[in-house]
Each structure stands twice: as structure tokens, then as C-alpha cells.
């Protein structure tokens, strides 16, 4: 990889990976489920909880069914990529680290106007909120920068710093592309050059049609309810596994169901079958699942639980 301007979408991703790896982050892989944003990855949602330090970065494919535009809108997609960084506790120089990542993808601060504009983040479905900014580069929102204060109704102690880059938008800006579908995915000098459109135009069309008009709302509703029920059922199990005799709280399997419920809700929303009042009720149901998962996670080792803590509680 060379210095100077990146030449393709994938080069920007690779540079971000290299940069955050150099800052000591574990470079994780995308979570293998449909999520609405990188925050849903358990490496963020769950790992922001508890006292154990954490530093991870990853690409997360994200789906927002209502944003589908059949691949025609220059910058709206129902499937897109987020780049996500979570560091706990948030280091004092997180803003500088972040700016370093922009420099790494070729943004020259002598010529560009970078601004931190108030944007408090809240995820009603995750019962999470934090304070921070949207970061503007020449008026373009290129990232979301958040200090997590609560997740799943739990206070974050210590506080995690979360960075989210909307990769397509950021890359289009850096590469000077006006329509996302025209963006070079790999290097345009490659033997087989591929544009973003070569990779995703057809899928955007297919999913837009399915999301808006074809998805079976009856089934989706059923899936939602099944996922909701399964999440609860998993967490209702006693902590001790009868087969191994070990203490195994099945947070992640339960949280998978929470993710599913959230995605089914998004699909139902895109089909336009959820009224304003019902909407709040559905969000509340997903939040209840997220809350239970968060409650369970802080009871696990990864969530900072130790035998000694358990003893203190026991006394």
C-alpha cells in the first residue's frame, strides 16, 4: 500500500484496517448476521459492558431496508458497510487517534475542514445512549464519534469510545465519486476492474423490490415473535449446564435472537405495516430483549464477572 490518495473502495478499508491494527486494536471480522449498524455486533454492544478493557475494529455490513432506492440514488443503499472501532476505556487522545485515521486514508487537513458537530447518539432498540459528535469533513458527515454512557440500561464503567465510519460515503468523498455505483471497488488498473455497481447494483434492485413489496409480512411478524420467544427461552435456562456442570450463561445465542428480532422489525417497517404507535411498542420489545442480554452478559467472565465477585454477592 502506498501513501497519498487511495485509489479504490477496498484500499480505504485496507488502510483503515492497517491503521487501527497499528494502534493496537484487534481486527475482527464482520458478524455473520443481518444487522442495522455496526453497533449491533456483539464486539460493540456487549463488550462495551463490564470492566474488562477492550479494543477492536472491524467492517460490518449493515442493512437498512427503508433506505433502498433500487441502486438509483447516488448515495442511499439498503445494504452498506460500516467501519467500527470500540476502545474501552476511551483513551484521552481518542480524537487525535481518530484524526490520524483520516490522514491515513488521504485526507489532508491543510485543505479540508474537519468539524466535530454535536450529535448525541441513542439507540432505542438497544437501550443505549452516548454523547459525542458527527464528524464533518467539508460539510460531509464522515463518522460518528460517541462516548458510550449506557448500554442495555447499564451504566458503562469504564466508558468506551466508539467510532463509526460510513464507508461508502467516506470513500466516495475521498475518491471524488458522485454516484456510489461508479466507485471503483478494486483498483481501476486491475486486470478485472470492478465498480461498486458491478458488485451491488443488482442486489440493491432485488432487495429493494423484496423489502418494499414482496416480503411476506405475516411470516415476518411470525419470525419476529419466534425470535423474541427464543431469546427469552434461552436466558430462562439455569446458569449451570447439566451436561458439563459448568456455569455457562448463553448470552450470545440469546443476543443473536435479539439481533434477528430487530432486523425483522426493520423489514416490517420498510413494508409500511407498522403504525406510529405500534412502532414504539415494537422498539420497546426489542429493547427488552437487549436489556435482558446485557443483564446476562455482565454475569459472564467477558462481562467482568469473577468468582470473587460472586462470593461477595453470595455473602
Amino acid at each position, binding site marked *: 500500500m502506498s501513501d497519498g490518495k487511495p485509489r479504490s473502495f477496498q484500499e480505504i478499508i485496507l488502510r483503515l484496517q492497517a491503521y487501527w491494527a497499528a494502534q493496537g486494536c484487534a481486527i475482527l471480522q464482520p458478524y455473520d448476521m443481518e444487522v442495522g449498524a455496526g453497533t449491533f455486533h456483539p464486539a460493540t454492544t456487549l463488550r462495551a459492558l463490564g470492566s474488562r478493557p477492550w479494543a477492536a475494529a472491524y467492517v460490518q455490513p449493515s442493512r437498512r431496508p427503508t433506505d433502498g432506492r433500487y441502486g438509483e*440514488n*447516488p*448515495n*442511499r443503499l439498503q445494504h452498506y458497510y460500516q467501519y467500527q472501532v470500540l476502545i474501552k*476505556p*476511551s*483513551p*484521552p487522545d481518542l*480524537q487525535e487517534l481518530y484524526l490520524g485515521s483520516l490522514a491515513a486514508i488521504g485526507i489532508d*487537513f*491543510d*485543505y*479540508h*475542514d*474537519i*468539524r*466535530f*458537530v*454535536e450529535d*448525541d447518539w441513542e439507540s432505542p432498540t438497544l437501550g443505549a445512549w*452516548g*454523547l*459525542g*459528535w458527527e464528524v464533518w*469533513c*467539508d*460539510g*460531509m458527515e464522515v463518522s460518528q464519534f460517541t*462516548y458510550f*454512557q449506557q448500554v442495555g440500561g447499564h451504566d458503562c*464503567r*469504564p*466508558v468506551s*469510545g466508539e467510532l463509526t465510519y460510513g464507508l461508502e460515503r467516506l470513500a466516495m*468523498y475521498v475518491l471524488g465519486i*458522485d454516484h456510489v455505483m461508479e466507485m471503483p471497488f478494486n483498483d481501476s488498473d486491475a486486470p478485472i476492474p470492478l465498480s461498486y455497481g458491478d458488485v451491488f447494483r443488482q442486489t440493491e434492485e432485488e432487495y429493494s423490490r423484496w423489502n418494499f413489496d414482496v416480503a411476506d409480512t405475516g411470516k415476518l411478524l411470525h419470525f419476529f415473535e419466534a425470535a423474541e420467544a427464543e431469546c427469552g427461552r434461552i436466558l430462562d435456562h439455569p446458569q449451570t449446564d447439566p451436561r458439563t456442570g459448568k456455569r455457562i450463561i448463553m448470552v450470545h445465542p440469546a443476543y443473536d435472537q435479539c439481533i434477528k428480532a430487530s432486523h425483522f422489525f426493520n423489514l416490517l417497517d420498510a413494508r409500511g405495516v407498522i*403504525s*406510529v*404507535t405500534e412502532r414504539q411498542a415494537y422498539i420497546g420489545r426489542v429493547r427488552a430483549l437487549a436489556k435482558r442480554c446485557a443483564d446476562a452478559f455482565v454475569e459472564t467472565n467477558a462481562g467482568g464477572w469473577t468468582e470473587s465477585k460472586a462470593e461477595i454477592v453470595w455473602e
Partner: protein
Amino acid sequence: MPDLLIELFSEEIPARMQADAREALKTRVTDGLVEAGLTYAAARAWSTPRRLVLAVEGLTGRSPDLREERKGPRTDAPEKALEGFLRSTGLTRDQLEARDDKKGQVWFAVIERPGRPAAEIVAEVLEATIRSFPWPKSMRWGTGSLRWVRPLHAILCILTDEAGAAEIVPLEVDGIRAGDVTRGHRFMASDPFRVTGVEDYQAKLRRAKVMLDHEERAEHIWHAATNAAFAQGLEVVEDRGLLAEVAGLVEWPVVLMGAIREDFLDLPPEVLQTSMKAHQKFFSVRDPKSGRIVRFVTVANRETPDNGATILHGNGKVLAARLSDAAFFWKNDLAVARAGMGEWLESLSHVTFQSELGSQAQRIGRIATLAREIAPMVGADPAMAEQAARVAKADLASEMVYEFPELQGTMGRYYAEAAGLPAAAAEACETHYRPLGPADALPDQPVAIAVALADKIDTLAGFWAINEKPTGSRDPFALRRAALGVIRIILGHDLRIGLQAVVNKQLLVHVMALNLDTAEEREMFVLEQMVDEIADHGVFGAAFHAVLDRLAHRGEAPEGESPDIAEGSWLARMRKRLPALSDDLMAFFHDRLKVHLRGEGLRHDVIDACLSMPGNDDLTLLVRRAQALNAVLATEDGENLVLGFKRANNILTQAEEKDGVEYSFGADPKFAEAPAETALFAALDAAEAAIGPALAREDFADAMAAMAALRGPIDAFFEAVQINTENEIVRRNRLNLLHRIRSTCLRLADLTRIEGA
């Protein structure tokens, strides 16, 4: 007299919070200093996105020594009393002095509080201020527990003496130690530097590309923006809120003006303006000749070698993407509008207005029916008013209003025009929301007025019917604003509306809708009949009576059987509840009217005097009466007439109470003894002859003048005669004459409510 300089250096502070934060820093620190015994000459606070700064000039170097003497118990008082005194003073027995007092020897405590150096006090006050700072939202970061609006990185806190030497105030808050170092602009001059005082700080910051004074930044931005626009024959659309916000987003403002792509210039100017402001905090630049928005102004936070070309290019691209969205919404919306907006109206039946009051579509239906009924009262065509009301809220379902809720109404007009609806309906779409505040313009076309009144009255009646009234400062549905809107529209257009009948009818409509599922059919039937009766009778009591009467006599109830109206039945409860609701809502209108008229300079007792007259639900009439009364009370005759009236009323009331009779008839001039008495008879005859016709033509000024003319004769009468004479016939005649004074005056206003006279 040292100067104090404080800088709290943090990550970016939200622009909207900076003004309050400056004020809080200044107040809390200076209050704390004064409380601790220091004084100061002047204090000023500034802010940038990254710093909150306070300069206090002419601070005293130490707080004064304090000496306080306190008298305690007698030396021979019980031990307990002495212990209590020692506890309260914090001294020991050997520190007390025994002194001779009138009653013997008494313990005295002399408490000395030596003054403290300013630095020590500043350190305490600043730490307390930081730890309890009133940010609207604050956060923790890292592993710490300190809360600040965003991570706090450094505290600069120095005291500078007259010779210019700076002393760092010893202070540490959660590991942040105060110093004398700060930094400049994040990108243009980020190296740290030391400062020795306020002037030095400001000068060095400016060299480091930070304009400290928020007002200077705002002025600079406005000046540069208007200059750039003027050079091209254009003007910047003024927006003070946006200016303050943008000034709070930059430390080194650089104004750049850019073009809007040709193909977006067809978008409504309101859309351009709203989109640019909401998403990008751009100012709009208008061509004064065409009124169209043709350029934008953005404010960057730095100078660049290419004079902002890259920044402007980037901003232009973002704008194009945003406006593509807006154009997409506009295009889709126009298609729906041109097809008659049916799609939106249909979808509004799935949108809840309020859980008990049903969907937006149901609400629109109610408003449309009501607008049709109000139309004749405001000079509008009923069919047109209904049609306008049916589409007035259609834009709530449009994509543009979903994206920019503040464009509701504005888009409604465009879409109604696109749908080919008459101009009056399009106008109503836009202006029926008005007035939005005490200073907002009123709707001024009859159809729009009918829809505006129907909308507001339906909302008020609905929330009254579900018992969601405003309490204290809580008014989540802006019902006070709705009531004031109704009042301002009626008064502003001199409308003659019997508000009570309209309100009653709409309360009934809501009560029926709310009980549709639970009430029996025959009970509903009664309420349905009532809707028509209300039009005739206006008030619930009479309407109920009429309907029940008819049912009893003609057996009009469906299915033979009459509904249950016995004590405790649903209808009996409604019979009580509906008038109570109605009175309560009218009282709410009257309260808002009083507040409104007080603002116009009308005394509250004058309003009360007119409110107790019949027909007080005709607000225009009520106000005319009040204004005429107010005017006449300002004259000497008027003021004294009230005195005369009260005197007459008091004497009469006392006599009636004493005698147990009502003196209400038969004053006869033939029993008049004094000339003044005869003259009063004549004056009352003349006044009554004038007042009747004046009232009939609603000329309150004339009527009040006729009343005021009684002042001389009444005064002369009281001067000349004794009411309670021994001649019983003459006494009774005079009391009856007093009654004529009372009844004549009370035809105009309830003068007993006038205060002070």
C-alpha cells in the same frame, strides 16, 4: 488587585449550549468569590467550541479578616447552656471571655476569621463550579467519574498581579492540574503556549488562529457573508439563531459562498432554505429581484492554501446529494398531489393523532364538518371550507414533511396547488396553523379562517373530553396556544361567533366518538339528536331537555324503549358532565382572553365586569364592551359614576336585606320632593331612552356615554336628599329610584366588579 483568568479546555462543546455555559461559569464563579469575601471590578465570559473562558478583573488579593463577638450564657448558668454555646462557636472554655453585663457576668466569644489569599478561594470556588456545572447533558469518559459536557482536558487558571506576574492557582480536579498553558487552533496552530494574563491570552490566541470572542466571530461571519452576497447583487437571508450556532462551531471563521446547481433552483425556496439550514448549517442567499434562493454561504473553521476551494467543492457536493433527496421527495410528492392526494389521505387513517382521539383521518373528518358549520359565521363558502379542511393536513403524509416537519403547511399549499385545488383551499393548507404564537400573523382569508378555527376548537374540545388539560407549565399539546389562536382570530377579524354553541357541539362530537363502543344505541341516539338541538339552544341543559321531552312525548326512541335517564345512568351522568366540561372550557377561553387583553392594556376588573354579562361567548362583543367601559372609566364622569353606582347599590342592598323585600318597581316622580330628585327621574328617563337603542345597535360607546351622563344627577341627588327619611312612602320611592340606577347601569356591565372606585 490581581486579574483572574480561567480557561476550561475540552473536546468540542455543542454550539447550542455555549451561551448558557458562559453565563453559568460567570455567575457561579463570581458569586462564589463574593460569598467568600472577595470583590471584583468586572467579569466577562467567552466561549469557542473547545474552551469556556472567564476573566475577572480587579479581584481583591485576599478576603478581609473577620472578627465576630457573640454573647453567651451567664457564667453561673447551668453547664448544659455553656456546652451548647461552645459547640455553636467551635471554641473551648479557656478561649471565652467573662464580661460584666447588666445582669451579672456573661461569657463572650470572640471569633477571629483571618482573611484568605484569593488563590485559595479561587481554587475552591472553581473546583466546586466544575463539579456541579449545570450542563443540560453531561458525560463521563475513560475510567474517571468527573462529569463534563465532553472530556475536559486542561484547566488554565492564573492570577496576574499589577506588575504582570502570573501565579498559577493551585487546583486539581480528577487528575487535571491547573496550569498556565493553552493551545491554539486544532489544525492551524496546535502547539501549546504559556500565558501571563487576559490580554496576553487573547493576543496569543489570535496569533494561534483562535478568535476568542463569540460575538466578534458572529459579527465577522455576518459581515463577510453580506459583503460576499452584496458583491454579486444578492442578499443573505437573516437568521440570528443560525448565526449564533455557526459562530459556536468555529474558532477561526472563514466565510465561503457557493452556487446551487441549476437543476435545484426549481425547488420551493422554503425547501432549499430548510434543507440547507437543517443539514448543513448553511445560510441562504437570495436574489432580491426574483426572491429565489440562488447561493449558499458556509463557514469553514480554517484558512487553506487554495483559499477554500476544496472545502467549497466538498460542501457543494454534499449539498447536491441533500438536494437530490429533496428533489426526489418533491417529485414523488408532486405525483401524489397531482393525483388528488388520495394516497396521503388514505395513509393518514393509519396515523394516530392521539391514542384516545383516534387517527389523523378521523380528526380531519371532524375538522371538515366543523369548518363547514363555522364557514357562514366567517363569510366563507361552507362547501369550500369543508373541502379545504379535508386536504389541509394531507401534507403530513408527504415525504417532504416527513423529512422536514417544519415545512408542514408550506408544502400543503404547494401540493394543493399542484392538485389543482382552488386558491382558497391552497391558502388554507398553509395558513390554518396560524397563529403559532402571540406575534404570529393570522390567517386572513375566510376559508382559511374557518379551517383554522375548526382545527383549534376541535383540538381543544377533544383534549377537554379526555381530560388532558394544561397544568402549570405542562402543556404538551399546546392547548393554550390553540385557545389564544381562536381568540386572536376572532378579535383580529371582528368575527361574531357564539363560541359556546360551537364548543358544545364539538364536545358532544368527541364524547360520542369516545363512547361509540360502550354506549347503547338508544343512548347514542339521544346524543345524536342533541347535536341538532345544540344549534338551536346553544347550551346543554336546554338541549337535553328538548330532546328528552320529545322522546317522552312522541316516542321517538328507536326500538320502542326509551333510554335510561334515571339518576346514575350514563345519560344522566353525561347530562351533568357535558355542561361542566363546556363551562370549564369556556372559562379556559376567558382566562386566555384576560391574559391577552391585559397585554393590550385592559384592566382585569374591567374584563371581569364585562365577562359577567350575558353573551360573553361572543368575544368580539365582549371586547367592544370592555373597551368602551375602559374608555369611560378613564373619564372623570365615568370614575365618579361608579362611585355613585356603588353608593346606590350599597344603600339599596342594605335596605332590601333589612326590609326583606325587593325594591324593584314603582318609583314615581310625583313623590319627588327635591328638585335634584325630579332631575334624576328625568335623567334616568333620558339615559334609558338612549341606552336601549345604543345597545340594540351594539354601540357601547354611546351607551356608556349615556350612563356616564347620569353622574351629575346622581351626585346632586345624593347631595340633596336623605334616602332613609321618616316618610315611608318617600323612602320607598327613593329606594325604588336607586333600583332604577342599579338596573340601568347593570345593563352595560357589572359595575360591582370594578375595583378601587
